[in-house]
């Protein structure tokens, strides 16, 4: 859904390039992503035909109808991001900080009940838990984690001591092992 909306917006405005915050340390197929990632017509990503990327030289040239996805933070890690936010005092979305929130447990994930758009399944009853999000993605496909981390240093502390990866809360990654690659081929960020 997110992918189609993105493609429609890129087509409508005819953008040459779209910047994204994807990092190589997030997921296996992203580990092979370029910083200037070429997309053929219709936003198709062909991992086998990626342009070699050497030194600090980026090839941003393209023909009409083709586009670029640009990932300047490719080589940052999850820790680098949080450290930068901490050092530069960058405001963050409150959902990253732990608070009492209504959630339901679904397929082993804690899904937040924000408003009436969230349809409850049979037998699902919202309960109040102290949760936060390690990653914010599609709604309602991103799961929350139970946490007491309600300050930035506490988030970083929690992340450093974590035993699961940040994308663990993303249903999109779990459909099967190659599912991110398939999504990316179709135009997902």
């Amino acid at each position, binding site marked *: 859904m997110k992918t189609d909306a993105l493609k429609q917006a890129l087509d409508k405005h005819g953008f040459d390039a779209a910047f994204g915050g994807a990092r190589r340390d997030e997921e296996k197929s992203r580990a092979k992503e370029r910083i200037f990632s070429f997309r053929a017509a219709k936003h198709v990503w062909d991992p086998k035909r990626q342009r*070699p990327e050497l030194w600090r030289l980026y090839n941003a040239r393209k023909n009409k109808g083709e586009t670029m996805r640009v990932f300047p933070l490719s080589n940052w890690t999850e820790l680098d991001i949080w450290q930068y936010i901490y050092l530069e005092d960058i405001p963050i979305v409150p959902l990253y900080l732990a608070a009492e929130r209504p959630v339901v447990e679904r397929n082993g994930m804690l899904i937040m009940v924000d408003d009436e758009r969230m349809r409850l399944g049979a037998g699902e009853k919202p309960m109040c838990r102290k949760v936060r999000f390690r990653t914010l993605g599609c709604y309602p496909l991103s799961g929350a984690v139970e946490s007491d981390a309600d300050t930035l240093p506490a988030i970083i502390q929690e992340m450093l001591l974590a035993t699961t990866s940040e994308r663990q809360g993303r249903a999109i990654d779990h459909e099967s092992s190659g599912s991110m*690659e398939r999504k990316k081929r179709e135009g997902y960020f």
Partner: protein
Amino acid sequence: MADASELIQRDIESYLDAQQRKGLLRFITCGSVDDGKSTLIGRLLFESKMIFEDQLAALEADSKKMGTQGQNIDFALLVDGLSAEREQGITIDVAYRFFATDKRKFIVADTPGHEQYTRNMITGASTADLAVILVDARKGVLTQTRRHSYLASLIGIREIVLAVNKMDLVGYDQAVFERILADYREFAARIGVANITAIPLSALIGDNITEPGAAMRWYQGPTLIQHLEAVEIAEQAAAAPFRMPVQWINRPHLDFRGISGLISAGRIRQGERVKILPSGKESTVARILIEEDLTEAVAGQSVTITLADEIDVSRGDLICAPDAPAGIADQFEATLVWMNEAAMLPGRPYLLKIGAQTVIATVSAIKYKISVNTLEHLAARSLELNEIALCNLSLNQQIAFDAYAANRDTGGFILIDRITNETVGCGLIHFALRRAQNIHWQAVDIDKGSRAAQKSQKSCVLWFTGLSGAGKSTIANLVEKKLFAMGRHTYILDGDNVRHGLNRDLGFTDVDRVENIRRVGEVAKLMADAGLIVLVSFISPFRAERRMARALMEEGEFFEVYVDAPLTVVETRDPKGLYKKARLGEIKNFTGIDSPYEPPETPDIHIDTTRLSAEQAADSIVQRLEDLGILWGRIV
């Protein structure tokens, strides 16, 4: 990691402060299919606690599904990220992995050992400071080991770790390790590898990765992690002469004009003199800015600087230290690595990107190819995918440069195909060719305009392209007759005729076709300079070369005339009986049969020979020339 966890729990702020000062080491791992490279990387990630529980669970599930390691975890599956790689059990593309220890952060470029090895390894190694070269203890130094070492030294990696893996399979025998090391040193001396550190290890079991191997007490050196943490990477960049390629002229309003870029080498202080290349103008640094003003900036920082004087600076220029400036030239000797399925043809124009500058370049000569396996020098007329050669390059304008050995950023370039825009190759500049510095253009007093005006015309080149038998020569001949009758000064360069003289030494391979067009383009240019209307009648099957010919002429001087006739039509006409011979296999590389014809996408004049007779076609071309003002009024 235990100490770190304690610190994180006790005092997260001082932990973050320590993190901030951690250095970064970028390295590459090379080895062939069965050397255990992926196992090694998986092991490094695992031991540095970079594999999380959910990733480990996915890995265990995948390992069982693939079954390559029985019931054990197959670490290779962690690294091979693409479906095709997992299905075929091979690594196709460079993958970047991240891990950190208490002392350093690491980025590992993992490159495949076989298919596309040169392209991928050069790509991964271009940003690396160190290479880990894996050798299977049972097999010793192999052809691949030499190949990987040569490529690593070519791209400028000075630190090599010879990781002798699978020591558990040779009974942890010291003699085996020593013999491999001696073999390797002998080879490494030949290619000039600077620093070699050899470590015996078992990636599968974990010996000498983080902890010393209990069974190898004879080995006194560091474990792999200890070495990676401690190895000194010469901080050359900050000590080298100042270089900043100009990325952008930052001009938010009339009162501010800043020059933005990433400092690639050296340092710069307020008040220091700088030299702008290629113009050679000098000025003084007034301000150095990031968010606030700095008094000094060093290599690795992206800054905006302002100059004391109003001098001309634009994107692509190079700002240098005036006492040690970069060189300027338009011809170079360089090592070229070809990375595309379509071969490199000398004479074909490519875009060359170096720093923030993009120019047009052609390879003027291939001196020799270098076999990556034997290091032998071989003669070559073109370069195929993954081949490496020493070449001379010729550019359409001067650029500022350093030798690659002195600065990777100002000495390394990529080549881009002008039609597909793919990155097709990369190169390392060695030095400027002296002939570029010593031959100057001789200015003459009578110029092209005056020569053409004397003939009451404008110079131009009509470039007839199309399949053999389409009618190019017939129509060109009629056009010339009509122009001649009008008192114009013309000349026809005909493909067949030129091959009897000037181009007698050329055949019909792709390489020769490119050279054929290059020479004819140059001759047409001289004739246009003489003030003539030049009619060129050549099949000229490739877009790239027609574009090259156009680029030789002045704007508005070149007219591509597409003499359009379908293959079925010309094959029926077959005036010289050539199509018949080509179909019988008696002529090789015949355009339209076994050699491609790339039709013009936007010809200046399009002649549809299925609708127009040769007479009508010639008339319409003459009319176009009149309309365009090439013929200044009638002379009777």
